[in-house]
């Protein structure tokens, strides 16, 4: 079941009555939030105005948008739910399979296909969306009203994907397996520089006689441009105002400041210049210096924040940009910092709302209301963490997971085949643990813990990453937990960049032409093992996973929860340290190895 305790709200709780009426059941993503009913009310209002109410775009079109995006996000819960919705709307199974295989080949009209390409681009690599993408769709005959609904549906889908991951929602129907090969969603068109928005037509409104605007003036002192761009749908603006009021402004569970920190850090990770500028300014009015906000946006670990708030931001960032790695243990980690269940649920809702607002802004092209102190540019290399296989997989590139079938069988109750998973991955798990713990006996012991945890949490594994990567990350967490327990001073989280500077090689004598001839295989192995064991843990684990286990850079980064640049820096440093230690044994004049 979900990550939070569920409470009985009675059969007359209005959102649940509406869900039963509309779908015949109450989706688990909402049932999992009964400890804070106000969240469910706000979310239900968004869902009802954006998706259920039919105005410009037909309901089926919106469900196609949600299904394809949930598929690209590799969110099994949302895929299963939208699949079921489309079934209820009468779409034949065969057509659903075609959409699911490749929407571009599913016999949709060119206008429909292009709309899905646009919403997928917005939903997965939003910072790359430009005015051209929107005008391209308008040229296909979509009206401003339909485009607004398409953008809102995309934003809401990302909201629900994040939310369902964060609350641990379990599919209410037979889970739809997400095929490894899927749509390639993007117009491969570069953004044109300086094409600022807003992209869609909007009507000027006066806060004095337009209630949604009156709310923003009351709360913030102005009407942010992201809302000015949506005046074609006052009912949705009302629902958004109520969501902001409920999730962001209510300060009795998490504080308003804590929630603004989440908004700022997640928006920066999403490269959303707009939200960083606007909420940096809001933090300033709440008494936080601009320099402090800048630091939270740049790297919250270096910011002046309480330890618990740092952990809160670690949690939010993982949920927002690394959902495939998110699990119950992240909830438990926050609990260990003293957060109560209601606060953790609010952090999930705040993170989801941030993804909603970021996606919405990138689709609308709303310009910042304050001069940005920092402009985030969607440089393809820098955005790799958003579109990399780990988080936003390009499905075509993702090979079939060789373990998927066995994992499915274990989940269906065939316990015995779990042994096959152990046999396949023992070596890798063992090496990971040796890499972290630096001790072979302890690694053997920790292997057992790792596989037991894997078994217990197999239900949480969402198949957005490879099983083997997920397994290595659990081995990593298990190893780290043991390190902490023995109060070891070693840590994998130290800032590495500082120590990176100024690493100077001391051993500069030339090596023998064929150093491996200098000693026996057994001697070399003993020497390498001894050398690797002596490395600090944060380098040791990277050297073991990359050079011994030969995991790819991407898989290693994902398993250790590191960014690729940080991983590369540690790897380089680790390799150079090994070189330094091996050097005396392999320089031309040296004879043999002394271990």
């Amino acid at each position: 079941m979900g990550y939070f305790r569920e409470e009985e709200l009675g059969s007359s709780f209005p959102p649940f009555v509406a869900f039963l009426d509309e779908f015949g059941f109450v989706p688990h993503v909402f049932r999992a939030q009964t400890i804070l009913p106000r969240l469910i009310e706000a979310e239900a209002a968004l869902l009802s105005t954006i998706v259920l109410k039919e105005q410009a775009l037909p309901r089926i079109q919106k469900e196609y948008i949600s299904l394809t995006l949930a598929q690209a996000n590799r969110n099994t819960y949302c895929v299963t739910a939208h699949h079921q919705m489309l079934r209820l709307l009468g779409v034949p199974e065969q057509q659903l399979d075609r959409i699911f295989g490749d929407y571009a080949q599913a016999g949709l009209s060119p206008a429909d296909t292009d709309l899905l390409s646009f919403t997928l681009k917005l939903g997965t690599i939003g910072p790359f969306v430009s005015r051209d993408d929107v005008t391209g769709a308008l040229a296909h005959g979509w009206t401003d009203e339909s485009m607004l609904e398409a953008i809102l549906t995309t934003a809401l889908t990302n909201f629900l994907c994040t939310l369902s991951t964060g609350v641990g929602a379990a599919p209410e129907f037979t889970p739809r397996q997400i095929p490894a090969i899927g749509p390639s969603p993007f117009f491969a068109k570069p953004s044109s520089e300086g094409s600022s928005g807003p992209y869609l037509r909007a009507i000027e409104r006066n806060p004095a006689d337009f209630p949604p605007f009156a709310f923003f003036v009351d709360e913030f002192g102005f009407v942010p441009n992201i809302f000015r761009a949506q005046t074609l749908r006052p009912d949705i603006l009302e629902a958004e105002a109520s969501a902001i009021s409920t999730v962001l402004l209510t300060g009795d569970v998490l504080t308003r400041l804590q929630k603004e920190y989440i908004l700022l850090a997640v928006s920066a990770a999403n490269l959303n210049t707009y939200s960083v500028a606007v909420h940096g300014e809001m933090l300033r009015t709440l008494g936080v210096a601009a320099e402090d906000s800048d630091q939270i946006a740049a790297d919250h670990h270096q910011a002046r924040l309480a330890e618990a708030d740092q952990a809160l931001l670690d949690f939010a960032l993982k949920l927002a940009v690394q959902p495939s790695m998110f699990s119950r243990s992240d909830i438990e980690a926050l609990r260990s910092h003293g957060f109560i269940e209601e606060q953790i649920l609010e952090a999930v809702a705040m993170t989801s709302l941030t993804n909603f607002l970021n996606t919405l802004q990138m689709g609308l092209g709303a310009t910042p209301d304050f001069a940005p102190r920092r402009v985030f540019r969607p440089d393809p290399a820098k955005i790799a963490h958003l579109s990399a296989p780990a988080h936003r997989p390009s499905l075509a590139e993702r090979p079939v997971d060789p373990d998927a079938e066995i994992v499915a069988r274990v989940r269906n109750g065939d316990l015995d085949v779990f042994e096959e998973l152990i046999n396949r991955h023992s070596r890798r798990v063992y090496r990971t643990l040796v890499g972290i713990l630096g001790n072979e006996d302890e690694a053997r012991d920790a292997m057992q813990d790792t596989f037991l945890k894997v078994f217990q949490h197999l239900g949480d594994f969402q198949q957005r990453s490879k099983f083997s990567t997920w397994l290595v990350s659990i081995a990593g967490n298990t190893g780290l937990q043991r390190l902490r327990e023995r109060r070891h001073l070693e840590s994998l989280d130290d800032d590495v960049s500082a120590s990176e500077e100024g690493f100077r090689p001391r051993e500069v004598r030339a090596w023998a032409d064929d150093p491996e001839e200098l000693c026996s295989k057994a001697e070399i192995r003993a020497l390498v093992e001894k050398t690797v064991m002596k490395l600090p843990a944060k380098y040791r684990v990277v050297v073991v996973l990359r050079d011994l286990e030969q995991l790819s850079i991407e898989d290693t980064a994902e398993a250790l929860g590191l960014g690729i640049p940080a991983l590369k820096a540690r790897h380089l440093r680790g390799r150079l340290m090994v070189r330094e230690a091996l050097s005396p044994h392999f320089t031309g004049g040296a004879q043999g190895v002394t271990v």
Partner: protein
Amino acid sequence: MISCTDFMAEIANYLDGEVAADVRSQLENHLSHCKTCQVVLDSTRKTLKIVTDSGSFDLPEAAFKPIAERIMARIRSARR
């Protein structure tokens, strides 16, 4: 001009063939007249090969068997 420190910072990318053409030519230019960096590059390349070929921390299949059995026993007893 790039320094030895710059070269060290790029050495892994260089070995992995992951530097852009212009950076590559700058690195090679540095390399052509810097004996120290030649040695470090050569020995780092050899280090990598030695580490990868060493088979370190690998155990024979049989060593994992009792561990797998213990894990399966725990799982089965929990389900009963």
